[in-house]
C-alpha cells in the first residue's frame, strides 16, 4: 500500500510541486521588475551575460588559495552527482521509462559502465561530506549557515545514501526508500537554496549583463 503511494500519487505530487515551483521561481526572477540602467551603453550586455556564465566556473584568483577545499570538493561533488544522475544505468532506464517514452517509442542514451557509476558516486560522497563538514566546522561558515543550508546538504546526502543502499536492485523496500527520499527532495527543491541549480544561470547572466553594458569585464 505504501509502495503504491510512493510509486503513484506521491510521485506525481512531488513532480508537480517541483516543476511548477521551478517555473514559478524562475519566472519571478527573470521577469521581475528591475532598476532600469539609464547610463549610455558602452558595451554589449548580452555578450557580457554569456561570458560571465562561463567565466564564473573558475574561482576568483584572489580567493582561490582560501577556498581551495570548497573548489575541489565542490567540483568533485557536482561532477560526480551529474554523472551518476544522468549516466548511471538504473537512472537512464528510469528516465527513459518515465519521461522519454511515448506510444511504444522511447529515447535513451548509453549509460556509463557500472564501475564508473560507483567511482562517480564515491567522488560525490567525498565532496559532499567534506563540504558539509566544512560548513559545520569552519566558524564563519557555521555562523552564516541557516537551517536551509544544512537541510539541503543532509537531504542530498540521504538521497545519495539510499540510492547506494539499493545498488543490488533487488529489494523493493530499498528502492522505495530511495524513491521516497527523492520525492521529498523534489518537494523541498523549489523552496530552498537547491534552486541554485537553475538560478545560477540568470544570476551570472544578470551580473555579466549589468557590467558588460558598462563595458566592464566581470
Amino acid at each position: 500500500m505504501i509502495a503504491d503511494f510512493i510509486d503513484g500519487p506521491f510521485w506525481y505530487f512531488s513532480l508537480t510541486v517541483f516543476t511548477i515551483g521551478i517555473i514559478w521561481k524562475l519566472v519571478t526572477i527573470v521577469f521581475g521588475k528591475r532598476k532600469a540602467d539609464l547610463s549610455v551603453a558602452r558595451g554589449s550586455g548580452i555578450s557580457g551575460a554569456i561570458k560571465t556564465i562561463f567565466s564564473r566556473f573558475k574561482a576568483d584568483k584572489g580567493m582561490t588559495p582560501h577556498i581551495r577545499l570548497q573548489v575541489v570538493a565542490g567540483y568533485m561533488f557536482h561532477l560526480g552527482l551529474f554523472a551518476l544522475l544522468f549516466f548511471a544505468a538504473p537512472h537512464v532506464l528510469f528516465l527513459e521509462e518515465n519521461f522519454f517514452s511515448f506510444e511504444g517509442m522511447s529515447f535513451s542514451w548509453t549509460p556509463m559502465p557500472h564501475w564508473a557509476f560507483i567511482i562517480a558516486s564515491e567522488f560525490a560522497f567525498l565532496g559532499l561530506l567534506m563540504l558539509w563538514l566544512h560548513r559545520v566546522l569552519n566558524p564563519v561558515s557555521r555562523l552564516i549557515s541557516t537551517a536551509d543550508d544544512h537541510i539541503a546538504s543532509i537531504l542530498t546526502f540521504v538521497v545519495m545514501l539510499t540510492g547506494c543502499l539499493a545498488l543490488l536492485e533487488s529489494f523493493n523496500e530499498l528502492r522505495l526508500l530511495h524513491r521516497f527520499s527523492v520525492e521529498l527532495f523534489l518537494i523541498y527543491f523549489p523552496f530552498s537554496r537547491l534552486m541554485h541549480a537553475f538560478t545560477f544561470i540568470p544570476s551570472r547572466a544578470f551580473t555579466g549583463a549589468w557590467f558588460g553594458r558598462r563595458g566592464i569585464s566581470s
Partner: protein
Amino acid sequence: MARMKFYCDAERCIECNACVTACKNENEVPWGVNRRRVVTINDGVPGERSLSVACMHCSDAPCATVCPVDCFYTTDDGVVLHDKDICIGCGYCFYACPFGAPQFPEDGAFASRGKMDKCTFCAGGPEEDNSADEYQKYGSNRLAEGKLPLCAEMCSTKSLLAGDANVVADIFRKRVVKRGASVLNKGVSYQNASLRASSVGKDK
C-alpha cells in the same frame, strides 16, 4: 528417504561436455554462469582424466554454513538449494565451496556480482514446483516430476551418475569389480580390460 548425490566416473568421462550443454539448455542458465564444468587433467597425455563437477550437495554444506543471510536449505532428498530472494550476492559461498559450485552472473567490478546461481540437482527452488517463477529463477524442476538431472541423463558414456547415493555407489562398485586390476597398469582402465592375452602387453 533417498539421499541424492552425483558421481562422475573419471575412467569413463571423455570430456564431451554434453552435461555442461544439457544443463545450460535445460535451466536457461544466463551468460557467464556455468553451473557444471568439465575439468581435464593431463589433456592429450596417456593417463588423461576428466571430471564433470557441479554442486556436490554436501551433507554439511559449507556454503550453507557461511552464508551471512542464511539463504540455503537442504531438501528431504539431500539436495542443497538456496533462496535467491534472500541472497545478497556477497560471494562468501563461492569462497567456502571447495568445488567452486556457486556462480555469479555479473563481472563483479565493485563486488556487484548479482545473485548467486548454482546447480540445483534439477530440483528448482523454494518457489512453487514447476511454476513460471521457479523456472525463471532456478531452472527446471525435474525432481518434482520424478526425473533425474539432465546432465546425468545426457552423459554419452554414462560416466556421470546422479541419483540415490546407495544406488549410484552400487553401480560404481560393480564397475570397479568388473574392471579389476587393469587400472593398476598405467592407470588406464580399459587398456587391459580383460585378461585375454591379445590385449596384454600391447602398449607397454
